[in-house]
């Protein structure tokens, strides 16, 4: 995708003028469309570095919240940030900015896939891409897991392993597995605090 759709105007005063609803929409649409393979990196770049709407600490704090909340992280981030700037309307506008453009793109792709999905050449390409996409998730997971093991070894790796085994290998429904594992894990964290 295009790297620099909007170049920040060098004269824009940092944070002194609150962003308008249109600013919000455009910013999240750009985050969404450029932030391919890692929307987080782009949202930090846009909100903290380019637009200077948040400090780095504010961003980290908002992101930590969105990571622990259930649901799509960056979607949550758009709501949390939009609310902070412009209340409920801001939250809605940021959300539509983030989800709207890819929704349109994906709808078109879906049409094409329904029509051409069985073409052998496309099918072969998708085999390759799926294998790489799986590897990407694996690599991300390894990155996330690093602090878990460098920490003084508690029961956290065991909890991660139990989650992995019950949902990934045994294929239990996510609800039953988490109904047990989440309270247990929080209790462990509480006791060890």
């Amino acid at each position, binding site marked *: 995708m295009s790297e620099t759709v909007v170049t920040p105007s060098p004269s824009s005063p940092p944070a002194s003028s609150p962003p308008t609803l249109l600013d919000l929409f455009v910013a999240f649409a750009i985050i969404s469309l450029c932030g*391919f*393979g890692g929307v987080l990196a782009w949202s930090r770049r846009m909100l903290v570095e380019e637009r200077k709407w948040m400090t780095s600490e504010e961003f980290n704090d908002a992101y930590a*919240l969105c*990571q*622990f909340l*259930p*649901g*799509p*992280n*960056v*979607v949550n981030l758009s*709501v*949390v940030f939009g609310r902070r700037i412009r209340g409920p309307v801001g*939250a809605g506008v940021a959300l539509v900015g*983030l*989800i709207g453009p*890819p*929704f349109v*793109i*994906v709808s078109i*792709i*879906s049409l094409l*896939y329904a029509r051409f999905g069985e073409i052998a050449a496309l099918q*072969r390409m*998708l085999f*390759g*891409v*799926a*294998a*790489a*996409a*799986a*590897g*990407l*998730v*694996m*690599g*991300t*997971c*390894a990155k*996330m897991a690093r602090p*878990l093991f460098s920490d003084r070894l508690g029961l*956290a790796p065991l*909890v*991660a*392993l139990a*989650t992995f085994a019950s*949902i*990934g*290998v045994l294929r239990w*429904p*996510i609800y039953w597995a988490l109904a047990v*594992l*989440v309270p247990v*894990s*929080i*209790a462990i*964290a*509480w006791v060890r*605090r």
Partner: protein
Amino acid sequence: MKDETGTLTTLASYFALMSLFAIGGANSAVPEMQRVAVEVERWMSDRQFTDIFAIAQVTPGPNVIIVTLIGYHVAGFLGALVATLAMCGPTCVFAFYISQVWERFKDAPWRAAIQAGLLPISIGLIAASAFVVTWVAAHSFVAVAITLATAVVAYTTRLNPLWIFAAAALFGLAGLV
């Protein structure tokens, strides 16, 4: 017509519920999506699910877009809309209200405990996702090799994954996967 409404309701309830358990992001719910779409509801084959996962990953935008693709596959444009709203709606409302009180409890010990307790859960969920999609994408030794090579590159470098996807697509096109 009645059938269609039924399908949309089913989509909405699955994704709305699932979103509340997707700790760590949309990718955390991929095993559950596969379980529901392929094994429980039989909306699609394993291969179609893999295709959809691959397309979602190469499409710009947040990972949650996989839900849009599933919705479209099941019930066309309306299905896509319903599935996306269901996956985003409940947690957005949640995020909206929680973020209002979050600041106030910045130093509360229970807040730290919840955060510390949910971290290994989210890692376990992503690991489960990686396992499930690797499993369904493993057509051949070359496919497994691509998966492992991508994992190593993603872990050790900051290369834009677009390049890896392009290379993998070429491998596939050449009939090697």
